[in-house]
């Protein structure tokens, strides 16, 4: 019973904290640049404002455009039900659930790309093309990480892979898990359109990926998209933090460790964004294939 209660606590955190996570990232970047920066809860205010605003739709668009943000958010939120936050059992867990997890994120992406193409704008088509290119190269890296994790822990559900078996796995398969964690961090940056793959603050449509796809969304739709993007970052953060920290904790102490880890993740992302420049688009595949190769090397170490 305590376990189910715990997963509900985590679900509540998952639904409420993500905008704060982005606030922390932005605060770190501001501090690095010597600015004061926006308040930590800026995104909450943005979401509230956008939700109340009206929307404007292009005459070119159809229902696909309107369905994009809805499906995108719903798929990411459902994926959250499968995530074993902080190593506590997920709300919904079964063998091979991580495949569903990854494919739900894929569904969200598919819906977003189609909504972008529905506007008939060359810029949004460009963004969609980049998004599908980079994500389909990131997908094998993600699966190699998860397969490494499955082999190391002997479990094929997220709750088992990230659960109590993970600390033991760090004992006997540390190098492989370390490589997987590094690769996973790269995947998290790429999937969430952060530097060095995409610059969330850029102002030139030609260089954007995620931002350019949602150019035509406004009002409540944009709120759904922004919220969904923050949930996705939170999910990848939770996966990375649990994999990297892999400590044996439970109950409230586990929640505290998890939150501290997420804070660390946000600071890390902020740091990367402060000290790195965005890669040229042609170099991004190199980075993603490199991440795949690293995690594949981890898997090879486990399989020999």
């Amino acid at each position: 019973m305590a376990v189910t209660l715990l997963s509900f606590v985590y679900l509540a955190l998952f639904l409420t904290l993500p905008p704060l996570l982005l606030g922390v990232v932005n605060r770190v970047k501001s501090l690095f640049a010597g600015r004061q920066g926006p308040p930590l809860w800026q995104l909450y205010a943005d979401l509230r404002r956008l939700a109340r605003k009206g929307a404007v739709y292009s005459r070119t668009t159809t229902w696909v455009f309107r369905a994009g943000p809805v499906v995108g958010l719903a798929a990411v939120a459902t994926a959250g039900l499968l995530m074993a936050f902080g190593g506590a059992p997920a709300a919904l867990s079964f063998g091979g659930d991580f495949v569903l997890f990854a494919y739900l994120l894929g569904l969200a992406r598919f819906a977003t790309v189609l909504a972008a193409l529905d506007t008939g704008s060359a810029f949004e088509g460009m963004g969609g093309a980049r998004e599908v290119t980079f994500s389909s190269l990131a997908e094998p890296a993600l699966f190699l990480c998860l397969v490494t994790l499955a082999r190391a822990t002997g479990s094929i559900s997220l709750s088992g892979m990230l659960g109590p078996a993970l600390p033991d796995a760090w004992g006997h398969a540390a190098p492989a898990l370390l490589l997987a964690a590094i690769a996973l961090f790269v995947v998290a940056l790429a999937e969430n359109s952060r530097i060095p793959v995409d610059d969330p603050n850029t102002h030139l449509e030609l260089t954007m990926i995620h931002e350019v796809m949602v150019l035509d969304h406004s009002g409540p739709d944009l709120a759904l998209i922004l919220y969904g993007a923050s949930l996705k970052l939170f999910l990848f953060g939770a996966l990375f933090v649990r994999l990297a920290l892999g400590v044996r904790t439970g109950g409230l102490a586990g929640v505290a460790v998890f939150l501290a880890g997420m804070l660390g993740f946000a600071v890390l992302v902020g740091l990367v964004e402060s000290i790195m420049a965005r890669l040229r688009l042609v170099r991004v595949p190199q980075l993603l294939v490199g991440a795949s190769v690293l995690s594949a090397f981890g898997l090879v170490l486990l399989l020999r």
Partner: protein
Amino acid sequence: MSAWTEMVFILLVVFDFFLLASSRLKAVIRAAAAQGALLSVLPLLLATDKAEIGHVLALSIGALVVKGVVIPWLLMWAIREASIRREVEPIVGFIPSLLLCAVGVALAFAFSSAMPLPTPEKHGFLVPTALSTVWTGLLLVVSRRKAVSQVIGFLVLENGVFLFGLLLSDFMPAMVEAGVLLDLFAAVFVMGIVMFDINREFSSLDTEKLSALKD
């Protein structure tokens, strides 16, 4: 102790990947230097009771100085003088060569245990790491256009040979290792002279232009 050794081997392979994936020559030279420096730790970590401490120390310090400092410094100086920064348009692209390297590494780690060796293995990762590094060096030499990249390839190749040498270091006289290092040193030296000649002649460092010199 063993966990650290393992980590060193894994880092060596990670440097292999980086060497093939990066196009910036400075970063590649630094990675090669770091790999060389990391190699110099291994004789100490792998030393058995039978080994003479003087021999091991000489090997380690020799590797550190030559592979980690002198040759990289020479290469850095060379690219500064020739003012080249990037490997553009390699013969085999960065991603294909990285994937080829990954396949080689996977095969090396999967099948090296089946290889007949003259001496008992000191560490399970020694032979596959050596094979991977040799493979990386070969790939660099074959797939890159710039003369500097090829010298780096030779350097990495030599790193792999050095790793193989560690397998035998209890038996191998230091002279052999010194001879190999000397070869490499000579190679860098010759390449340096050749590079400057080509650079002065054609204001470019493509090895493909070397064939124009044959008359």
